[in-house]
């Protein structure tokens, strides 16, 4: 057996550290264990140092990053757990299997904390579906995978965000996030704290699927990707549902001492992590593992990523109630070992020790400080003629895949199971869920790779700002965030520079707004090794917000004819990374800047408008700009509006800035009492203007430099929004 045949992902430098620290040459099983845990996907070796910039504390934070899920206090003894995962590499090769097992993975993390999963959110990126049949195939099958899995386990998918860009053609991004709810005293950690406790492996059998999946996720995709299909795990949502029901019932007994889900790296990472975080050791006998194939080697059993498996730490005596619940649901389980006090991960096969490593050493991959270099940006200013036909450009934007209605997607997701969905996909700016204590939880995930590639600092901070605006728009206070940072190869200094800038941008914004980051994920190597094409930097922000009661829930659409429409916030000349520039194939320009100091006053002011009943329609401005926001409010409400946008506040210069700029910090609201609305905004010193009123069968806009109003008929708006995705996808 040569080291080459193991195809490890470890670098020579890392292998030297291993030999030096252990003082010997590890055997094959030990190399595989270390390889799984030291993969980028499992260890965060390229990102840990920078991730320390995130603010992680807050009065509602029960557990921050470093656990299977972040935990946030939502009052009355209840907590909400949140976690985000990606399955980018598997989905690029097998979109159905990759996406469904992505859902399976994120559900397991929430379940392993002892909380019940109550909602899923999907954030997806694909290539250009207008031009690429391959991207359409990936899109159709990722959605089907998420639908089949989520629907079967009975957890509603309530929100999402989808972006199409050519840079994702060979490297699609499939991010899935999950929210859970439970009682604070019922929380269970992934720690083996008590020597003598037994280790029980529960759920699906262990097979050869997904072997070294964590290593696969930590390399660039190659042209031979088709042959890597065996690295993709096989989904089994029925087994997951049995695990969910049985483990939630078992957790209620209070007998589970620790619970850890088996994800990337399989048994290797789960065992070493529970021992290390518990300050203990573990001793396991692999012959007790329920294997699917009879001739699996110890290394294969340790690194298999077969799905639907959970590791439980149970007291050595008195676990019968747990085993009875598992038997009732016919969930296979086996006692595979015990917790020790020696600090070692000891692995046996037929009694004989086949691997023995210090647990704390296995989980501490040496950090890598990659060099970073700011890319040279072209200084050329874009020259785009001002839109002669604003109405045509606006309809074209509404019909563009990034902005068009995604009903084709979420119509395939059961978004109502669970009796908690107050605002469902497409209904408003974010989802809204009812919690057991009667409060409501808003959730939304956002990203913007076009802006991030030009200006990673503002682009990434902007994703957080956009997600915050989305939860504020339904009346919720942002209380926590998880992030997902997706980039190309970290050994490329320009990629690493944009990674660092993105973190700085998000961290600065969260610190200023006092939004703790309670968890997150990093996914590198989203790059095609043949063409060397990396994805555009794709940080994602998933924000949750809290509403105390259901008294004032605004709608997205305009409702009452005659109601005044108010534009809140400044519109500036910030077309960089905009959908407008994408449509006219222009690069460059100024990317919208976040203004945390303004937002600190803006969000409470908008919440005050909503909670005092002064406004009944609220929408934030983001992709496509003010024009798109107004059109969406007309379409959703089934009624037109007549506005004079020349009154909109800000230092915008011409009609393109005004209508299409994606400046942050803006909302459009409508409500009966102009005076009341204006008073609240003036007192908070928020720029605003009454621009017109709801009514008519068209969106009619007075614009600068145009004698006559630009008019879009309501049915033209709806056709543009609703036609694109069904037409492309069938």
């Amino acid at each position: 057996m040569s080291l080459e045949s193991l195809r490890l992902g470890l670098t020579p430098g890392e292998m030297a550290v291993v030999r030096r620290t252990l003082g010997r040459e590890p055997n094959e099983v030990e190399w595989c264990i270390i390889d799984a845990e030291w993969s980028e996907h499992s260890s965060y070796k390229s990102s840990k140092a920078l991730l320390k910039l995130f603010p992680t504390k807050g009065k509602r934070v029960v557990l921050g990053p470093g656990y299977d899920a972040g935990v946030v206090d939502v009052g009355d003894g209840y907590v909400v757990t949140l976690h985000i995962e990606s399955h980018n590499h598997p989905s690029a090769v097998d979109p159905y299997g990759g996406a469904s097992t992505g859902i399976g993975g994120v559900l397991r993390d929430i379940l392993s904390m002892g909380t019940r999963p109550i909602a899923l959110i999907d954030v997806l990126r694909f290539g250009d579906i207008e031009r690429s049949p391959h991207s359409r195939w990936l899109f159709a099958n990722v959605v089907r995978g998420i639908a089949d899995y989520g629907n079967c386990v009975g957890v509603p998918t309530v929100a999402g965000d989808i972006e199409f860009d050519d840079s994702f053609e060979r490297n699609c991004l499939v991010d899935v996030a999950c929210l859970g709810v439970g009682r604070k005293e019922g929380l269970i950690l992934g720690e083996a704290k008590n020597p003598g406790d037994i280790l029980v492996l529960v759920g699906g059998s262990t097979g050869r699927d997904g072997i070294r999946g964590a290593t696969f996720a930590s390399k660039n995709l190659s042209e031979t990707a088709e042959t890597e299909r065996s690295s993709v795990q096989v989904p089994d949502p029925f087994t997951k549902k049995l695990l969910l029901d049985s483990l939630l019932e078992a957790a209620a007994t209070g007998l589970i001492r620790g619970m850890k889900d088996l994800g990337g790296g399989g048994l290797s990472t789960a065992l070493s992590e529970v021992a290390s975080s518990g300050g203990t050791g573990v001793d396991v006998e692999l012959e007790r593992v329920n294997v699917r194939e009879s001739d699996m080697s110890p290394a294969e059993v340790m690194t298999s990523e077969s799905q639907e498996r959970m590791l439980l730490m149970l007291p050595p005596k008195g676990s019968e109630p747990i085993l009875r619940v598992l038997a009732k649901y016919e969930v296979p389980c086996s006692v595979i070992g015990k917790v020790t006090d020696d600090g070692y991960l000891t692995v046996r096969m037929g009694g004989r020790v086949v691997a023995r490593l210090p647990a704390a050493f296995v989980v501490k991959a040496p950090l890598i400080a990659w060099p970073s270099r700011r890319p040279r940006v072209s200084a050329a200013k874009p020259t785009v003629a001002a839109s002669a036909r604003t109405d045509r450009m606006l309809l074209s934007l509404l019909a563009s895949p990034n902005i068009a209605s995604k009903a084709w997607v979420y119509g395939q997701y059961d978004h109502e199971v669970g009796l908690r969905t107050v605002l469902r996909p497409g209904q408003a700016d974010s989802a809204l869920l009812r919690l057991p204590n009667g409060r409501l939880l808003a959730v939304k995930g956002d990203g913007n790779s076009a802006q991030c590639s030009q200006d990673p600092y503002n682009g990434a901070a902007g994703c957080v700002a956009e997600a915050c605006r989305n939860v504020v728009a339904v009346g919720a206070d942002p209380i926590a965030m998880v992030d997902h940072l997706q980039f190309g190869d970290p050994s490329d200094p320009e990629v690493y520079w944009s990674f660092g800038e993105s973190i700085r941008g998000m961290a600065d914004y969260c610190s200023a707004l006092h939004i703790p980051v309670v968890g997150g994920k990093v996914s590198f190597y989203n790059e095609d090794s043949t063409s060397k094409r990396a994805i555009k930097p794709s940080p994602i922000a998933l924000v949750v917000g809290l509403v105390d009661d259901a008294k004032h829930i605004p709608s997205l659409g305009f409702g009452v004819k005659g109601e005044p429409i108010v534009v809140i916030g400044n519109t500036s000349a910030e077309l960089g990374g905009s959908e407008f520039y994408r449509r006219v194939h222009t690069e460059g320009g100024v990317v919208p800047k976040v203004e945390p100091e303004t937002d600190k006053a803006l969000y409470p002011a908008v919440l005050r408008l909503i909670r005092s009943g002064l406004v009944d329609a609220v929408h934030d401005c983001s992709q496509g700009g003010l024009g798109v926001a107004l059109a969406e409010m007309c379409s959703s409400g089934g009624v037109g509006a007549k506005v004079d946008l020349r009154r909109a506040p800000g230092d915008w210069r011409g009609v393109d800035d005004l209508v299409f700029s994606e400046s942050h910090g803006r909302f459009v609201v409508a409500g009966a009492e102009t005076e009341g609305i204006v008073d609240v905004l003036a007192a908070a010193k928020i720029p605003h203007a009454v621009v017109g009123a709801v009514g008519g069968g068209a969106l009619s806009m007075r614009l600068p430099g145009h004698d006559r109003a630009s008019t879009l008929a309501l049915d033209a708006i709806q056709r543009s929004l609703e036609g694109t995705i069904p037409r492309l996808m069938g």
Partner: protein
Amino acid sequence: MKVAVVRFPGSNCDLDAVEAIRRIGVAGMTSQLVWHESEELTKFDAVVLPGGFSFGDYLRAGSIAARSPAISKIRRMADEGIPVLGICNGFQILVEAGLLPGALLRNSGLRFVCAWTDVRVENADTPFTRIAHEGQVLRMPIAHGEGRYYAPEEELRRLKRDHRIVFRYSDAEGRATDESNPTGTTYGIAGISNEGGNVVGLMPHPERACDPLLSPYSSDDGRLVFRSLLGGAGG
């Protein structure tokens, strides 16, 4: 009126049904989750088979649950006139068990559909539609991939003749049009009953239409389906 909601391995709308009935809060009606192997099932006054993916929908939706010991108990209870309601997967189970005729096939669009629909009450004499009137339109959501009700010609004739069609998809005014049929069901059928009139299966989810807060149309029409169990004249 003690209502049993049966949980099979893979049921996922069982807790919803229990909770919806509890929240309706009608005096004299309680709901309880009952495991499919439990002997207690026969002690209840009404049975609900909830939605979900019992046994993973392996072989065919509802086919394995139809072999559960619960079903032989339910068959006997149905013979005695106990009201039985099959919602979504529950409807599929009743069809697979032969308690209701026909078949539930893949939606005509070949995709899962989650949407709010209107259904017209065709028969206001069942234990689940007693307080409605014929022609009344109820707004409830569907969420399924295999809900295209199919009955061969002869069976459809029998269903019509014996007034065993309980709900048909319709528009908001109660007209059963092609556009209002979301999945291509035979004759727009959304729900049917057995010969005895006490076993009803439907694809829409009444338990999801009991709280206006959870409906984009503020509908609570689903309450009617459960409250009918306590009887009373048509409204």
